[in-house]
């Protein structure tokens, strides 16, 4: 069994191989062969992950931590960084769902990117992204994780601006990159600080070390800055909605299911450090997460672009996970991460299918009544909708409930009961905006517009000549069906039931037991909440979600072909936060940067230039010695020799 786990290096090796193959001959293979190779590489990687998982299940839970050293990377004094993979329940969970979802999305992309002139390039990026993400998750030290961290950032940049001939796409990519740099800065500082305090940046050694609460607090907060960048938390979430400029599979893979979860993963990975930090640091994390969850949910209410709604929804759901991390219920955070990966990938791919069928129109107000034309897409989308809204027994219900119960129970978090209520509000808002999306897209009367003339469809019998919504090909519907199954059943991996007592106590918290070796000391366990109270909380959460759906359905369902009430303008403009940041950066911010630049030019460069001028001045004097007359050189050599001789004779050192 141990040998099977040691095969973990195969998991990132396959996407790397696919990436290299496509780099060399991808263009020659063209469509669809390049796509199949990439999909095959991902599929092989998924199988390898399953093998590792099986191997790990066969081990005792105390032995489920395997480090595979591949080679020494940086060796300098006390600073030792190896390329080493860390296989433990946490990372194996991550690689399972990353490779699984990535395989489905690769398959979907073969259909979605049909006819694109850069077909093979797209799959090069996708494979490289998968490789980077797996290195991020499997790395056994902060630097290797950072390598993957930057790799996924770079791939995200390439893929957001994949259709770079349009200005908006190119600048969205740049925005994502620059915003992420802010977070990366926090990550780097945290790495430096970890090395100074722990003397090592390996997770294993950091977990067993002890550095005192103030240093741990500093590292925690710096890592949280990094996590806020990647996992799109306030105030760094700005890039994620814009990232929807990329192809839809990219939105599903990178900006919903995998890359954006890396911040949450990182925080879960360094849980011993967070545990050592002052109490206010986790509370701060929880409150930032809550604010993000609420803030993004309100914005999602005001969006008309179907992908923008899902993007803000992702930001909001990531907020839920961060709340869970701040509360200390890491299992709930990872649980929600997994279920969210299922249903959000499903929703994104579903929206991609809709956009595909509507010939790239993304405005929900021009949809309506699509369920008749796209039965598979609509059916699977409805499952995703119920899952994200938190309706029993879909996956989102179980994971969201875990977070809510955790925050209700943990009194060490600042004002935890208030946090609970506000998070419940955010969950209700989730149900509202998702219901609005579903109603406007699939139900009601068609409001399609003719692509050529732009006229609206009035007759219910005559289809528009230039608009034929249609179901997508099998490459696109198969992943939808698979993900729908997972979005429905994903919650069953960690249900809060238990029976028996003492030694014969059994329960259904499979994920929690599985993750225990990774989170043994620092997972917060419920202390104040009994089974009855948990049941009440679950009922409350379900009632809120169902009520929200009911209310929203009445609001936006309109059989006469209307689009229901619009949210206040401030919401559709995202509380003007984006504009404010842009204005600040363009105005006072720009002045500040210009001041810094001019300081750099005059003071820093000035010193360097002055040194250069001085040397040039000296050179101007000294160059006159270089007369070009050989005999004068000979004289100088002679004089020098005599002077040396005289020196030795006088000092007697010779």
């Amino acid at each position, binding site marked *: 069994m141990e040998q099977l786990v040691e095969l973990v290096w195969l998991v990132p090796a396959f996407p790397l191989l696919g990436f290299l193959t496509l780099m060399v001959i991808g263009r020659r293979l063209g469509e669809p062969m390049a796509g199949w190779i990439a999909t095959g590489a991902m599929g092989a990687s998924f199988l390898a992950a399953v093998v590792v998982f099986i191997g790990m299940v066969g081990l005792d839970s105390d032995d489920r931590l395997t480090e595979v050293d591949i080679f020494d990377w940086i060796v300098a004094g006390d600073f030792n960084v190896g390329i080493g993979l860390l296989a433990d329940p946490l990372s194996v969970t991550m690689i399972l769902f990353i490779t699984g979802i990535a395989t489905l999305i690769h398959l979907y992309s073969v259909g979605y990117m049909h006819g694109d002139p850069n077909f093979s390039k797209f799959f090069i990026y996708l494979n490289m992204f998968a490789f980077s993400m797996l290195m991020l998750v499997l790395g056994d030290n902060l630097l290797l994780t950072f390598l993957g961290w930057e790799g996924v950032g770079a791939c995200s940049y390439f893929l957001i601006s994949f259709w770079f001939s349009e200005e908006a796409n190119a600048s969205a990519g740049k925005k994502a990159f620059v915003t992420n740099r802010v977070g990366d800065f926090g990550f780097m500082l945290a790495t430096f600080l970890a090395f100074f305090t722990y003397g090592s940046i390996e997770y294993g050694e950091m977990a067993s070390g002890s550095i005192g609460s103030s240093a741990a607090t500093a590292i925690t907060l710096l890592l949280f800055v990094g996590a806020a960048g990647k996992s799109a938390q306030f105030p760094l979430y700005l890039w994620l909605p814009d990232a929807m400029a990329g192809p839809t599979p990219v939105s599903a893979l990178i900006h919903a299911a995998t890359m954006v979860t890396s911040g949450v993963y990182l925080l879960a990975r360094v849980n011993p450090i967070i545990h050592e930090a002052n109490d206010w640091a986790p509370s701060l994390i929880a409150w930032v997460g809550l604010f993000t969850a609420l803030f993004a949910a309100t914005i999602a209410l005001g969006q008309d672009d179907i992908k923008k709604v899902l993007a803000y929804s992702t930001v909001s759901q990531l907020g839920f996970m961060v709340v869970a991390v701040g509360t200390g219920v890491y299992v709930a955070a990872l649980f929600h991460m997994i279920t969210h990966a299922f249903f959000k990938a499903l929703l994104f791919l579903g929206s991609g299918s809709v956009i595909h069928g509507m010939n790239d129109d993304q405005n929900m107000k021009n949809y309506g009544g699509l369920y008749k034309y796209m039965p598979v897409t609509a059916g699977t989308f409805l499952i995703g909708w119920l899952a994200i809204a938190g309706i029993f027994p879909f996956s989102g219900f179980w994971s969201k409930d875990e977070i809510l119960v955790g925050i209700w129970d943990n009194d060490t978090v600042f004002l935890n009961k208030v946090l609970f209520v506000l998070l419940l509000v955010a969950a209700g808002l989730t149900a509202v905006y998702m219901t609005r999306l579903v109603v406007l897209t699939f139900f009601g009367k068609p409001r399609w517009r003719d692509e050529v003339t732009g006229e609206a469809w009035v007759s219910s019998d005559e289809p528009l000549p230039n608009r034929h919504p249609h179901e997508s090909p099998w490459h696109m519907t198969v992943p939808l069906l698979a993900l729908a199954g997972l979005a429905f059943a994903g919650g069953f991996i960690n249900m809060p039931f238990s029976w028996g007592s003492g030694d014969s106590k059994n329960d259904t918290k499979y994920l929690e037991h599985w993750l225990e070796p990774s989170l043994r000391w620092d997972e917060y366990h419920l202390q104040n909440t009994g089974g009855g109270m948990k049941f009440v909380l679950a009922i409350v959460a379900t009632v809120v979600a169902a009520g929200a759906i009911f209310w929203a359905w009445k609001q936006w369902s309109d059989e006469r072909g209307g689009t229901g009430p619009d949210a206040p303008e401030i919401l559709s403009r995202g509380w003007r936060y984006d504009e404010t940041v842009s204005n600040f950066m363009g105005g006072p911010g720009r002045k500040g940067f210009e001041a810094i630049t001019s300081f750099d030019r005059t003071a820093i460069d000035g010193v360097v230039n002055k040194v250069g001028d001085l040397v040039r001045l000296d050179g101007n004097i000294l160059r*006159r010695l270089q*007369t*070009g007359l*050989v*005999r004068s050189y000979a004289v100088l050599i002679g004089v020098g020799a005599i002077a040396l001789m005289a020196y030795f004779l006088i000092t007697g050192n010779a």
Partner: protein
Amino acid sequence: MELTSTWYLVLAAILFAIGTVGLLVRRNPLVMFMCVELMLNAVNLTFVTFGAELNDIGGEISVFFVLVVAAAEVVVGLAIIVAIMRRRSGTTADDISVLRG
């Protein structure tokens, strides 16, 4: 009168001085070149002398190195001189000062 090492050393010093003065006062590159050779061989003479005096084979060994270096230097130097002479015949060393600062 016995020929002691002193004689050889004096001879070497004289040869070296002649070479030095020649290098400094003559302007014909070829002659200057010969002066350099004279200086090198003066040094060789001292090496041999001391080698014999101190009964140390190192002196003679050094001479071989100097000879080899001198031979290599002659090859390069003569080639340069020939090349220069082809372009501008009858020049003196002082005229070849293109590389002045």
